[in-house]
């Protein structure tokens, strides 16, 4: 194992988790939005660690470049009021309930992972056997590693139908979003 890669990996992990936590607890919604963008960057980096360069790029473009902008836009548009207002008791209650629920769900997820450790391991042993060292991997290695066709071919081949459906979906969502925000031309 390459220690550099390890350290980098843990740093990315830490930043991602910390910024995600900031999304939850930030007082101002604008701060939360900034934290979210950092979190998305972290996730993109994680994708790179997972050899999913294309996904990482898409994550950058769509999430950081698109969704975050949308969110910022909405925040700017609507939040001249800050979220901090309201009674403190309600706030504590909300935080407590959220924390408790999230903790329960997290426990459940961890339990699932731990119970299914063995089958998960068996099903996903590929990398640990074949690629002990991920740092310093070359493009040729990647090509050898993906003997089958690339993502684009898969999208147009096996996943053609979802691809088409998704395009229709995006179009319909666009129509829906436009219909909601468009000004009535009459009355």
């Amino acid at each position, binding site marked *: *194992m390459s220690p550099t*890669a390890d350290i980098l*990996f843990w740093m990315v992990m830490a930043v991602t*988790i910390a910024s995600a*936590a900031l*999304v*939850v607890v930030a007082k101002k919604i604008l701060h939360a939005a900034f934290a979210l963008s950092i979190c998305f960057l972290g*996730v993109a980096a*994680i*994708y790179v*660690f*997972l050899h*999913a360069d*294309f*996904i990482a790029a*898409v*994550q950058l473009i*769509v*999430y950081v470049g*698109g*969704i975050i902008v949308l*969110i910022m*836009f909405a925040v700017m548009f*609507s*939040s001249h009021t800050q*979220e901090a207002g*309201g009674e403190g008791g*309600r706030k504590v209650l*909300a*935080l407590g309930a*959220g924390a408790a*629920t*999230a903790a329960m*769900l*997290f426990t459940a*997820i*961890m*339990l699932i*992972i*731990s119970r299914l*450790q063995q089958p998960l391991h068996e*099903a996903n042993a*590929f*990398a*640990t056997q074949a690629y*002990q060292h*991920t740092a310093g991997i070359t493009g040729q290695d990647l090509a050898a590693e993906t003997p089958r066709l*690339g*993502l684009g071919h*898969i*999208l147009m081949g096996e996943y053609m139908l979802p691809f088409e459906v*998704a395009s229709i*979906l*995006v179009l319909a*969502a*666009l129509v*829906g*979003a*436009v219909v*909601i925000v468009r000004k009535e031309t009459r009355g």
Partner: protein
Amino acid sequence: MDAFANLPVLADSLLGGGPDNLFNYLLLAGILFALGVFAMISRRNAVGILMGVELILNASGINFVAFSRFNGHHLEGQVFALFIIVLAAAEAAVALALVLAVFQTHRSIELDQVDEMKL
């Protein structure tokens, strides 16, 4: 407690291996998921709640890509993650449009004030 007997074993298999260990990614996804849930429940601002949603979606994406990677590079997982991102964008567009609609009708996007309809 018997139910948690496996956790120490998990802890062993976690952490070790850095980026080569599947369980690290699963842990990260779990944490993001939980944080997303946390945000959805405790945030009162509609945009904040939507941020929670995005966290949850990212968590699933990480899971998929991780499995795709450790599964012998079946690209299905990556494709799924791709679609998650696309759908998240579409959903964010519609949801933020709705947030604007709420803002226009209620002059606020604090969703705990948007509760006209109840039992």
